[in-house]
């Protein structure tokens, strides 16, 4: 019987298989950041162990890093200690590190792909659930806990329990103005935050094949929000073109050998998935969340749902609690929800294409009075590219703040946070209670919706902007 893409990559990494035991898998790439690694290095030190493969390990600083005054000492002493701990650990164990201020610094899931380290058919792990991002290249990539970080540092392997496979086939074509973010939010709303549990998702079908690498990363990034172990997309010409010439992409004969291998990484025609979901892309429109988990979303044109309409008791209770926390009432049109803050960034939507699409909407327009808009590139490289294209000027001219790269307001571990009761439209991936700051309220949106919302001050899509005065011709 044929195998799925995920099964092929898994099989190619089995170091040891024994009856009744989890497979021991080899890990090709281990990404580290400051938050989930200190206790792992401590464990190594206590046991007198080394990092087995420093040549397959790389670290960067992202979660705690400030986005302003990065040349000054970090004000929060606890954040500073955590970054210093990473620097000390990397120096002691010989791990390559891109610290704050370095040109390769940035959100760990933006850095791996842009260096060409994330490649088809590899296994990628990181002590971070959004490691699923790397699956966009046809890699098997999953988030791990700190004990597993220590395990990979010490052995370059992980014992892994088997997974199930789910095909998410997206037919048709995304309508104009509907993005990968809208698609993944709609998928999660459909299958639920627990719907992917135990599964590796494979996104496939004509609408997926048309997507750029950036858009594919947006999709795979949020697989974890459906509860999945990982998300994958089969590598194709788009993938190879993205990788060719990057710092760590194979060269010469190695490139040819790699591409020949990568081309085998497709689900066989006779392979059987454990579950299948079909989505019609052409029926989608801009999608936003109204609740406190990423599955609580609806088309922007809809209204806040009535909790009483849920048949399942725990879903009903979750919706009631969400509305209470979000300060919303049933039946309120989503378009009428006003925001204080707009955040464009994160490993979901902090890449160059995302900044371009937000800038295209903002060009010649102004951020509404009383709204603060933060633009935080996913990495320093993205930032430099945006500056080279003049996007930073478009943002600042519109009244948005152009910041230094990092996770920033995605989770508010640095000073970029919502105040209690404040409401944001955010291109990040989690709308959990307090995620962007204690008491903060988050609506997940695409970069385009974020930009239109910033201009109008309420949740909106670019199509709503037609009647707003434009000073210079918009680049949309």
């Amino acid at each position, binding site marked *: 019987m044929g195998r799925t893409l995920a099964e092929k990559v898994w099989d190619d990494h089995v*170091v040891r298989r024994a009856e009744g035991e989890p497979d021991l898998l080899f890990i090709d790439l281990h990404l580290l950041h400051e938050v989930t690694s200190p206790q792992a290095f401590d464990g190594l030190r206590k046991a007198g162990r080394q990092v087995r493969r420093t040549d397959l390990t790389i670290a960067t600083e992202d979660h705690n890093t400030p986005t302003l005054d990065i040349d000054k000492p970090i004000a929060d002493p606890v954040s500073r200690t955590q970054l210093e701990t990473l620097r000390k650990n990397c120096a002691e164990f010989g791990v390559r590190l891109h610290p704050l201020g370095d040109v390769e610094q940035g959100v760990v899931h933006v850095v791996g792909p842009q260096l060409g380290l994330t490649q088809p058919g590899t296994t990628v792990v990181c002590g971070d659930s959004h490691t699923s991002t790397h699956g966009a290249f046809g890699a098997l990539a999953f988030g791990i*806990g700190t004990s597993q970080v220590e395990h990979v540092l010490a052995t370059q*392997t992980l014992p892994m329990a088997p997974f199930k496979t789910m095909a998410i086939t997206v037919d048709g074509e995304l309508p104009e103005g509907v993005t990968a973010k809208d698609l993944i939010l709609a998928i999660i709303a459909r299958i639920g935050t627990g719907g992917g549990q135990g599964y590796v998702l494979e996104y496939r079908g004509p609408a997926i094949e048309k997507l750029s690498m950036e858009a594919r990363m947006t999709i795979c990034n949020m697989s974890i929000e459906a509860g999945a172990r990982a998300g994958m997309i089969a590598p194709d010409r788009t993938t190879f073109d993205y990788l060719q010439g990057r710092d760590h992409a194979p060269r010469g004969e190695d490139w040819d*050998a790699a591409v020949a291998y990568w081309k085998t990484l497709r689900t066989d025609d006779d392979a059987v998935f454990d579950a299948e979901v079909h989505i019609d892309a052409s029926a989608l429109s801009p999608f936003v969340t109204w609740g406190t988990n990423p599955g609580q979303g609806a088309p922007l044109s809809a209204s806040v749902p009535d909790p009483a309409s849920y048949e399942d008791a725990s879903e009903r209770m979750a919706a009631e609690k969400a509305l209470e926390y979000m300060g919303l009432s049933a039946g309120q049109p989503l378009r009428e929800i006003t925001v204080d803050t707009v955040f464009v960034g994160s490993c979901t939507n902090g890449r160059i294409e995302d900044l371009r699409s937000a800038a295209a909407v903002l060009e010649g327009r102004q951020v509404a009075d009383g709204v603060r808009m933060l633009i935080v590139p996913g990495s320093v490289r993205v930032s430099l590219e945006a500056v080279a294209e003049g996007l930073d000027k478009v943002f600042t001219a519109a009244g948005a703040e152009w910041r230094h790269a990092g996770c920033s307001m995605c989770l508010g571990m640095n000073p970029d946070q919502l105040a209690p009761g404040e409401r944001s439209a955010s291109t990040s991936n989690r709308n959990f209670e307090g995620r962007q700051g204690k008491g903060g309220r988050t609506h997940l949106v695409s970069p385009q919706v974020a930009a239109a919302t910033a201009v109008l001050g309420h949740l909106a899509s670019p199509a709503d902007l037609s009647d707003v005065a434009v000073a210079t011709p918009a680049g949309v």
Partner: protein
Amino acid sequence: MEAFTTHTGRAVPLRRSNVDTDQIIPAHWLKKVTRDGFEDGLFEAWRKDPAFVLNQEAYNGATVLVAGPDFGTGSSREHAVWALQNYGFKAVISSRFADIFRGNSLKNGLLTVVLPQETVEALQKLAEADPTAEVTVDLVARQVRAEGITADFELDENARWRLLEGLDDISLTLREESSIVTYEANRPSFKPRTLEV
């Protein structure tokens, strides 16, 4: 890792579904570089509410958390497991756990038990009606017992054995050194390396 065989203790009913790890331990606690001292951060936002179940004196010292479905979703932070353990929990019961959280818990000796939602609710009702009621989580017999409730649960044999013995995964894997060396020797040269180019 501390071994887990069987544990008897009082239970706390947590009637919420989809409790994500940001709720279990908020991000600002993640700046710590140790594995202990997270108990005050556990459910920090909810603990401000005097009516929150952990603030009710009757549940002081309870060691079994009986939670709603989809417990531990979201972030991979192992700090969520440490916070529950630092606070004193030995076991968590739910009808569904997020995968990464479950993996993390079992690696740290916090037993996560999956039971049908009706049984979870029966346990919650019991703990609400009588906060002194004891619940036994028996990994040897793979069974949860409380007054009027006996429920078998599943856990894969390998994970169970490691918990019962308190075995450390890394030492177990290091016994496979020769398989790792063989794999490494056959790995294609086009695979990426992180060394500076």
